[in-house]
């Protein structure tokens, strides 16, 4: 075999190898981004489900008259969003006590535990949503995946819709870079 033929064949093998790996990388990137988008959407729906279940559970445990349930839901939503701060469950107790002054201390304890665990669990789910979004955004923007992602038309979902639940109070505090003292009611 002549030297020229050797060089040409060598180059052909090297390019062939790199081409093969590149094609499989593009397929793998596409599949990975599709899986991540599906995971993000599923996590977003899971967070909604978790949020809904949590509020229902508080209302169920609280034993307030059925006509007061909507109001209790509002107070509970505010508590889970951290609108009343760390001791948000106290606002819920206060509301329940107003509606049902004879409610037992066991019920109070139970409500407090449901709220605390629900908040922590919801916080964990929100953290997972943000983490999945972070991993996806890193994939989208890191070299050389970013070129492939752009070429394949990713992101195919509106990422601004995939966000966590916060309260008006939090939004305002971050906007103004100032917070106000916590008031329970």
């Amino acid at each position, binding site marked *: *075999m002549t*030297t020229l033929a*050797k*060089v040409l*064949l*060598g180059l052909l*093998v*090297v390019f062939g*190898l*790199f081409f093969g*790996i*590149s094609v499989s*990388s593009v397929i793998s*990137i596409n599949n*990975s981004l599709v899986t*991540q988008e599906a*995971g993000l959407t599923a996590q977003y729906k899971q967070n909604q489900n978790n949020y809904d279940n949590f509020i229902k559970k508080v209302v169920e445990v609280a034993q307030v008259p059925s006509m007061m349930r909507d109001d209790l839901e509002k107070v509970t939503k505010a508590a889970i969003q951290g609108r009343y701060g760390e001791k948000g469950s106290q606002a819920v107790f206060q509301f329940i006590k107003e509606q049902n002054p004879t409610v037992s201390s066991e019920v109070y*304890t139970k409500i*407090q*535990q*449901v709220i*605390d*665990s*629900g908040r*922590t*669990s919801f916080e*964990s789910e929100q*953290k*997972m949503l*943000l*983490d*999945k979004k*972070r*991993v996806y955004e*890193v*994939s989208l923007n890191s070299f*050389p*995946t970013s070129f492939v992602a752009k070429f394949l038309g990713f992101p195919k979902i509106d990422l601004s819709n995939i966000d966590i639940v916060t309260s008006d109070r939090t939004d305002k505090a971050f906007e103004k870079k100032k917070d106000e003292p916590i008031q329970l009611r």
Partner: protein
Amino acid sequence: MILLVMLIIPTLVAFGFMLANKRRIAFKEFLIQIGVQTFLIFLFSLFIGWQNTHDVEVWNGRITAKKTFHVSCEHSYQCNCYTTCSGGRNGSCTTHCSTCYEHWYDVDWEAYTSNGETIDIDRIDRQGIYEPPRWTAIQIGEPTALPHSFTNYVKAAPNSLFRKTGLVEQYRDQIPRYPGNVYDYYHVNRFVAVNLKLPEQFKREFNQKLEDLNATLGRAKQVNIIVVMVTGMPEDYYYALEQSWIGGKKNDFIIVMNVNDIYKPTWVKAMAWSSNKMAEVVVADKLMQLDVSKGFSIDSVLDIAKDGIGKNFVRQPMNDYQYLSKEITPTLGQWIFFIIVGLIVSIGLGIFFLQNDFY
């Protein structure tokens, strides 16, 4: 993509060798070089995935049975050797031997757990004829704690929001080592005291009772309970511990309890990879109300844990964190190591093909 980057340098080296020594390195030998490097990189990527996510958790159970039985002898030696020579005065001689065994059979001494694990007790004589006292001491129903490997995606993702940062340095001297060491075949101490001078008897009793509780709840709830008792620490200490232990193993339920001088808890927090945080809240709440007026009671602490975990704990599968597998990339050390190994192999193969002509 990592494969591509890893393949560039060895390919260039192999190509350079072929061009510089065109008469002595055949094209087929160049292809062999590329093939070997590709296979090596494939092994490297498997190794990276394994090393960065590999972790060990403790499974709890009880001894269900113990047995002894005969097995083939493991002690072989060469015997009946003889030498044959050929080729006259300048020829070579070869020694031929048979494989013989010291015993007709060996004896194994084993115990089994409710998790389907096998515990192999060491023989006290070479063949295993005499019953080992440790095997004799094994009681059916005794608690067991044995290590098992699992894939920890969170460990492999230092940038994940589930990884805390910035607190360990502050408490470096007060962060204990993770209690996962197995001693005496199937025991693990999971009571950890920090800044506390406790009698050895107290620690032993706590560990024994905790091991029994773990055996009771272990299989049913897939849990491994650890109790960390500290004094004089702010709540930040809990987060430092969480950072250092990366949130614990996937089946851990870690109770961190700060106590005052009469062992009354001043703050309690629980750490677990659970989908339902109720167990953590209930256990922490009840421990905060622990009555120590008649002295600190280990049984009271463990009863609270048993009730709270037994009724509320739901372990979260590690698969929920599989999305973090996208973040498994070689560390700087791994990059350097693999590039050096790749270079050594490609240069070594180049020199080898220079000295030996195969095609």
